[in-house]
């Protein structure tokens, strides 16, 4: 039963189109970091595939070497990575962890991309003008 649940969950997660997701993350991360190839760390298997398939993103095996850490849940946050730059695909993670500067998630039918202004300032990240509509002062 447990195996079936995990299988169903994974099917659900894998339902989004990987190619589109790679392009989306490529665009978001390059807006945050001014580098040609950005090293991304994630422990999430689904997003590992997404990062690998992204054109200018590279999957980092070690979070300390990564430019950005992508997490889908709080438990995916590696220990000792408090100073790292976090991006999440979960609203609760964004809400709970102050190190997470932004999130890309969906709520019912709505797609949402959000950045928190103070956290961006803290990490000295300035986003391009095309992203300004996604920047919020607070949650």
């Amino acid at each position: 039963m447990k195996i079936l649940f995990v299988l169903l969950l994974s099917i659900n997660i894998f339902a989004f189109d990987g190619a589109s997701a790679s392009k989306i993350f490529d665009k978001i991360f390059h807006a945050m970091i001014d580098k040609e190839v950005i090293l991304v760390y994630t422990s999430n298997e689904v997003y590992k595939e997404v990062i690998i398939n992204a054109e200018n993103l590279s999957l980092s095996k070690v979070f300390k070497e990564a430019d950005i850490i992508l997490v889908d849940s709080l438990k995916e946050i590696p220990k000792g990575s408090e100073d790292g730059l976090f991006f999440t695909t979960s609203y609760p993670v964004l809400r709970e962890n102050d190190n997470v500067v932004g999130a890309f998630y969906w709520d019912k039918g709505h797609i949402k991309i959000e950045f928190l202004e103070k956290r961006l300032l803290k990490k000295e990240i300035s986003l391009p003008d095309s992203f300004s509509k996604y920047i919020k002062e607070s949650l």
Partner: protein
Amino acid sequence: MFIFKTIRTKIIVTIFTVFIVSMSIHSAYQFHNMKVQAFDTFKSVNTTINTILAEFISAYIYTKDIKNIKSSIDNINSIYIKSIYILDENSKVISKSENASDLKEYPRFQELLEREDKTIVSQDEYIMLNTFDILDIPIGYMVVEADLQSYKDQLEKERNTHLVETVMFSVVFLLAAIVLANSVSAPIEHIVKKLQNAEADDILVFDKQSQEEFQYLSANISRSHNKLRLSKINLESLVQEKTQELQDLNATLEIKVQESIAEAQHKSEMLQKQSRMAQMGEMISMIAHQWRQPLGAISAVVGNIIVQIELEKFDLTSEEGRTEHKKDLMKNLSSISSFVQSLTTTIDDFRNFYKPNKQQDFAPINDAIEKSLKIIKTSLVADDIDLIEDYASTQELYIYTNELMQVILNIVKNAEDNFNEKGYKGASISIKTYDVLDKTVIEIQDNGGGIPEDIIDNIFDPYFSTKDDKNGTGLGLYMSKTIVEEHNNGKIFAKNINEGVCFVIELYTNSCPLKFTK
């Protein structure tokens, strides 16, 4: 261009035409606006639905949540939407509304994608393509096929409503036009009818009109008609009066004409008489002049006889003396007789001249001229005036000889008087005759200086004279003109030549004998 028989028809047709044209333009404009508005509404509804769907199902599309996509699009309940297709980023149909066709790929996707407004609009279809994207990265598409039937039905409904309204308004306007036309034309028709039925002698009175304009018009027409009626009556009376006068005048006209002719004839005779009297005076002067020489000679002969007797030139006691005296006396008496004969001849010449011609002579013109000159020649010689005669005319023609002589004498005497007045030396008068085709011409010219150009046209007028009162009556040339034109069927005129004036008399040789009217 239409011509309307009555004002009523013109008003009705004009108002109705203006209404129909205005209504048509208004309806066309309204319908166009309505069409645009309806389509805008239709487009707006479709756009709104598109926007809402795009907002609410984009996540389902991203996550390929077919169940929720299907549920969402099935919830759209609009009369404007016929079918909805949801396509993935590879344009494969992943969901569709209930009434949509069963397709794996939307056939016109590429055509829609290439269009700038992502819309296909025609008379029969209205298809919109909406792209779901995240950060401008397409994650899927939605094709909405609009239901144009509802739009068409709405238009049809509006069109019918407009048509009904137009017909209703047309009827109302037609009735209004008829009422208006009646109200405008009724007073005019009343006036026209009255005028048609009115006789010229009727006193015209119109019914009281409501409008000031018609009051003014009817009052004016009435006034004018009545004035005309009065004028007609007056005119008829005047015509009657004048007709009577004319009839009376007609009755006495013949008498008056006869009186006038008689008066004119009398005046003419008086003029002739005056002229003749004047000429007679001149003739007496000429006779006296011609008689002077023979009378002087007679006087001299008689004086000689007296002297011989007183001086006892002949011895009457002797036979020889008596014979010589007798011979001398006979010689002197013969001279006296000869001189008396000359005086008699002169008298005869003048008497013939004053004897009015009863009939025309058929003779050469030269005879009349020579006879005239015979009368005046002595006077001309005495005044030392050369007379040059050149008679080339040989034609015989009908003339009143004495009348023509009077003309010749008038002209020659005038020339002589002019020379005497001015004391001319080397004066000459030239007379010549010649024939030209059907006429004989007499030219009498002098070297007396001519006639001033400003009066040359007046010299033939009656009582026009350049001589002093004692010598001129102003009738000579007038009578000459009358004689030449009326009695001898000719023409007379004067023209200035180098040194003097030339009088030209033209007489027609082929003319029949004229009846002498004197």
